[in-house]
């Protein structure tokens, strides 16, 4: 009998303990990205741009060179990096406040320019780090610390569907929306992330994977309940699937 390790901490993680709350999906997504980087053999030339948000320390958690951008500006920072050193693989990791609110202009234009970078977008319908305020992706009726009476379309606007919006742009090579609530869709999510990085390696332009994620702490739910709430509410409003795939056209 041979004792074979089939799954363990990937090399592209630094091993530092995550600062996330128990059950927070940020951790799952980190691991998936690290696995993909390992599998593609690009660790030594990958640069991460972390956001401001709960994942602000992402640059510490990955075993790659990296930095943290001002809130929302990761796509611009990544653009600067990639333009300066096109041989590197550059990815941003961003929350919904970061990407869909303050950083709207930067993500739209990075996508539109077809910057050859990859963005992992964690949509947890809330500002996790600052204490559960409304995000642009907060669902209607959802209570947050800045929508204490529930999000109201008239007062606070609508939950924004970023993948759909960005899909209208010509510079986009790949966009998919996934979630990581079950082992099955964790595997799907990983495939999507891999495709996104592959698109960059092939030089096809901008790629993005939106991951519907939980924030058990600010949702006031247990990690398991949070996963259910996500499936029953968020996944309805934010349909999973591939929104753009120009990786085949290109082949």
């Amino acid at each position, binding site marked *: 009998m041979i004792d074979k390790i089939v799954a363990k901490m990937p090399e592209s993680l630094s091993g530092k303990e995550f*600062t*996330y*709350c*128990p059950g927070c999906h940020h951790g799952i997504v980190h691991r998936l990205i690290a696995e993909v980087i390992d599998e593609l053999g690009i660790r030594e030339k990958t640069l991460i741009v972390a956001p401001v948000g*709960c994942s602000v320390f992402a640059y510490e958690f990955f075993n790659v060179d990296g930095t943290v951008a001002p809130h929302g500006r990761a796509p611009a920072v990544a653009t600067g990096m990639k333009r300066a050193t096109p041989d590197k693989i550059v990815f941003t990791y961003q929350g919904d406040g970061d990407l869909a609110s303050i950083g709207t202009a930067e993500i739209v234009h990075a996508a539109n320019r077809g910057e050859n970078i990859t963005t992992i977008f964690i949509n947890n319908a809330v500002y996790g780090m600052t204490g559960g305020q409304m995000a642009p992706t907060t669902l209607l009726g959802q209570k947050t610390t800045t929508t204490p009476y529930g999000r109201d379309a008239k007062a606070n606007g609508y939950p924004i569907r970023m993948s759909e919006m960005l899909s209208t742009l010509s510079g986009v090579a790949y966009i998919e929306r996934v979630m990581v609530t079950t082992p099955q869709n964790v595997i799907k999510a990983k495939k999507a992330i891999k495709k996104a990085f592959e698109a960059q390696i092939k030089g096809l332009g901008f790629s993005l994977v939106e991951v519907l994620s939980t924030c058990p*702490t600010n949702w006031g739910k247990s990690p398991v309940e949070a996963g259910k709430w996500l499936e029953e509410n968020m996944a309805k409003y934010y349909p999973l699937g591939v929104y753009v795939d120009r990786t085949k056209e290109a082949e």
Partner: protein
Amino acid sequence: MSTYSVVAAGFGGQGVMLMGKIIAEAAMHDGKKVTWLPSYGPEMRGGTANCTVVISDEDIGSPVVDTPDVVIAMNIPSMIKFEEVLKKDGILLINSSVVDRQPTRKDVKVFKIKANDVADEIGNVKVLNMVALGAFAKASGLITFGSIKKALEETMTGKKKVFLDINIKAVQEGMEKIEKA
């Protein structure tokens, strides 16, 4: 008395912030000047939390305190961290339901309260903070039961009103069950 400072510290879920707030409010009702200052930031997510309450007869300068007069340590890390800075002859109140080790300082007055156990007995482990608060009141003599009650009455309004009685009970039990080590 001129100026006293209290640090309440523990895990996030142990209600130390509220404990500090009730201490401050009670002291206010007793006619004192008070400040309440939370730790925020690094310790906030998941880890430990603490707050500092300053109680004084005069206007309070700094709400930050290098060397507190009283430390309420609700868990081990808090005891380790704050035992060190406690003033000589100060009071160290330990939640002995959770803290299973002994303090090392010999020049301070140590008290113990089995806050979790007492709260469990009353019927709701969540009121462990009020048990500790009662013990603190007893040990320090800094605030009176009357003003604690008043502070609780003002805090537990609306939907929270149903919890008022058990919280008051917890304070009383805490005052009773405290042990001098």
